[in-house]
């Protein structure tokens, strides 16, 4: 009886072994990264966001090359296209009989700029005779470059300071977090305006260098968010058992922070960076809109929309949507694309909220 049972047990364990082998054959082991990628691509919004960003990137970085190769001009090429513009101005006045009369004045002027969309210039030319489509491409290039550099710098500063604050606690944490508190309380846009206006007024700084200062300011205003995320995560992770395990092996604090703790904050960092890209683009375009960003004659999406500012006359706002609407649409597409991707990544990293 016992013999028989032993034999039976042997068979069962063989089956189990075989089943396990089968398991390994059948179950492809997928890395966490691939799981995240899969969850990311499952959401239609993330894919839409990805397409939007790819489009904007191709448009901004490959577009200028195509324009250069096919038509042989760059962003600052001025086109003089002659056409006759009808200008009708009206005014109301009170006649001697007390009735209201309207006065019409039609004048025909020869204009060279502000050409309407045509086969050569798909979106027409602007008030200075620049090709709008080309300027959109160059503007995008600047916006995207700035946003990526700023976010990159913010993340580096945030990871280092947040890591130190979270790990060491005590006075290090106090010091860093109070600085963060103070910076977070500064009104962002007004301060950026003051700084940009100051830089603009200093004659010793060449106009093309202003953009570097702007990036520095944007970084200085933005790193606090990353620091808070990293610190919060590290405070939480420090309590986990595996950190205790790392502690017992006696590795150095720096090693612990940047090898064991910081990598675990990556999901949050990637998400916040992606969402931050859109934020930087909005800031940059606002500064450009106010004339404090990329200096003229260089193109920026914000300054292209500024042409429609009704304080400078309603003509462009009313009759030339081709000059400012595309730039606005591009800003929306870019920021929206980054938010879609950011949201998709967050759901992919943290599937708790998903079914």
């Amino acid at each position, binding site marked *: 009886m016992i013999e028989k049972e032993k034999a039976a047990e042997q068979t069962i364990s063989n089956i189990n072994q*075989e*089943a396990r082998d089968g398991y390994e054959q059948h179950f492809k082991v997928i890395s966490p990264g691939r799981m995240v990628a899969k969850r990311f691509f499952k959401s239609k919004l993330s894919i839409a966001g990805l397409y939007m960003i790819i489009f904007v990137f191709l448009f901004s970085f490959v577009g200028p090359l195509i324009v250069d190769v096919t038509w042989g001009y760059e962003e600052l090429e001025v086109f003089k296209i002659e056409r006759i513009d009808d200008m009708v101005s009206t005014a109301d006045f009170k006649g001697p009989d007390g009735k209201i009369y309207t006065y019409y004045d039609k004048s025909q002027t020869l204009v060279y700029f502000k050409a309407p969309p045509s086969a050569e210039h798909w979106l027409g030319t602007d008030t200075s005779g620049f090709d709008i489509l080309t300027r959109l491409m160059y503007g995008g290039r600047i916006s995207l470059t700035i946003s990526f550099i700023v976010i990159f710098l913010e993340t580096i500063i945030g990871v280092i300071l947040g890591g130190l604050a979270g790990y060491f606690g005590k006075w290090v944490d106090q010091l860093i977090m109070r600085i963060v508190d103070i910076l977070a309380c500064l009104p962002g846009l007004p301060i950026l305006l003051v700084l940009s206006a100051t830089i603009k007024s200093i004659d010793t700084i060449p106009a093309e260098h202003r953009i570097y200062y702007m990036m520095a300011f944007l970084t200085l205003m933005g790193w606090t968010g990353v620091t808070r995320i990293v610190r919060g995560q590290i405070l939480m992770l420090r309590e986990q058992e595996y950190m205790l395990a790392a502690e017992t092996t006696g590795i150095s604090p720096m090693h612990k922070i940047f090898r064991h703790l910081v990598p675990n904050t990556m999901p949050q960092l990637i998400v916040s960076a992606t969402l931050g890209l859109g934020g930087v683009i909005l800031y940059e375009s606002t500064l450009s809109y106010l004339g404090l960003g990329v200096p003229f004659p260089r193109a920026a999406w914000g300054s292209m929309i500024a042409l429609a500012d009704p304080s400078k006359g309603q003509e462009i706002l009313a009759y030339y949507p081709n000059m400012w609407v595309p730039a606005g649409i591009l800003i929306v597409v870019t920021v929206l694309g980054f938010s879609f991707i950011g949201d998709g990544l967050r759901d992919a990293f943290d599937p708790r909220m998903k079914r």
Partner: protein
Amino acid sequence: MGLLDKWRQIKQAEAEQGIDHTMYLTLKEERRISRENNRIIRQFEREKNRKNVPEEEYLTKMRDPNNVVEFENLHTYFFTDVGTVKSVNGVTFDIPQGKVVGVVGESGCGKSVTSLSLMQLVQAPQGQIVSGSIRYQDRNGKCYEITKMPRDKMLKVRGKEIAMIFQEPMTSLNPVFKIGEQMDEVVLLHEEDATPKMARERSLEMLNLVGIADPQKVYNNYPHELSGGMRQRVMIAMALSCTPRLIIADEPTTALDVTIQAQILELLRDVKNKINGSIMLITHDLGVIAEMADYVVVMYAGRIIEKGTVREIFHNPKHPYTIGLMRSKPSGKTKDNRLYSIKGQVPNPINMPNHCYFFNRCDRAIEICAEEYPEMVQFTDTHSAACHLCRNGGLMDTNSTKEQR
């Protein structure tokens, strides 16, 4: 013995037929499943959302008028993106009036989903009752078919006729309302022409009933001000406040300290007698079952593998899984110092094999076990098990195996 060859043969056949047990699905496949699921779910939801359903459609007759609830061939599936999970896959059992029915099984075997199906609380829209019936008899002798009952009618059953106690007392009470408010709500909702004053009196009475020393104080407390045991008492008091016919207790003691566990069980038994109701007790703790239950239902991977009276199950278990369960509970009697454990894992819930689900973990498997799923074999009026070994009236001599170990 040939069993191993048999297994290989099955796997071979499956591979030839293109049956794949892999968990990994490509994005495209998942999308297809997801689309298919949405279609199915929409159908079920449309059915559930119907308004003004005539009463005849969900009135029915009980098989046995002594039962409060009868489950018959119940199937509750979850339509997930990686495939359909058959959480409850053909479950049949009765809950007689005034009795305690214990449902045992390891986590994920479908015992909670069975109880949630009875409450129509399965996590919609993914979770749906696909087929089968749940019959319920109210105190006037009227019988309802729960699976066909419209939502608004179901609201009158929940909390009033069938009440539920959950596993996690720490999170099962709303943190922003006082205990009193949460308790009064049930009374005000279900008792006709109940006044706030009446509700308050009833709540205090119930708090007193479940052995809370200072009901006035607890009534005005927020949940976070109470301990886990106290909160579970409050949950029980809340369940009792409309004197339900059936209390579903879903692992009521799992999250509690051992000393508190005994108190809560004692309390449950007491109140059952006081209100003359039935209890459906869901647990994975055999000790709790032995203490409390009159009838036991053992579930494995969405199916019932054995059911019977508590005496039959504990003294004469038939299914190898039940036997394994019995052996894996610690008892001071045996000298053996190693606790028995059932080897292996429950099969992947998405692609269930078409043979016995316990086959690959069973140490008594024979050839037929790998070929078809066993039918229920009846031993007595109350005792039955689903095992090929039991077909000739129980081949196994369980006592002998026990001694050999």
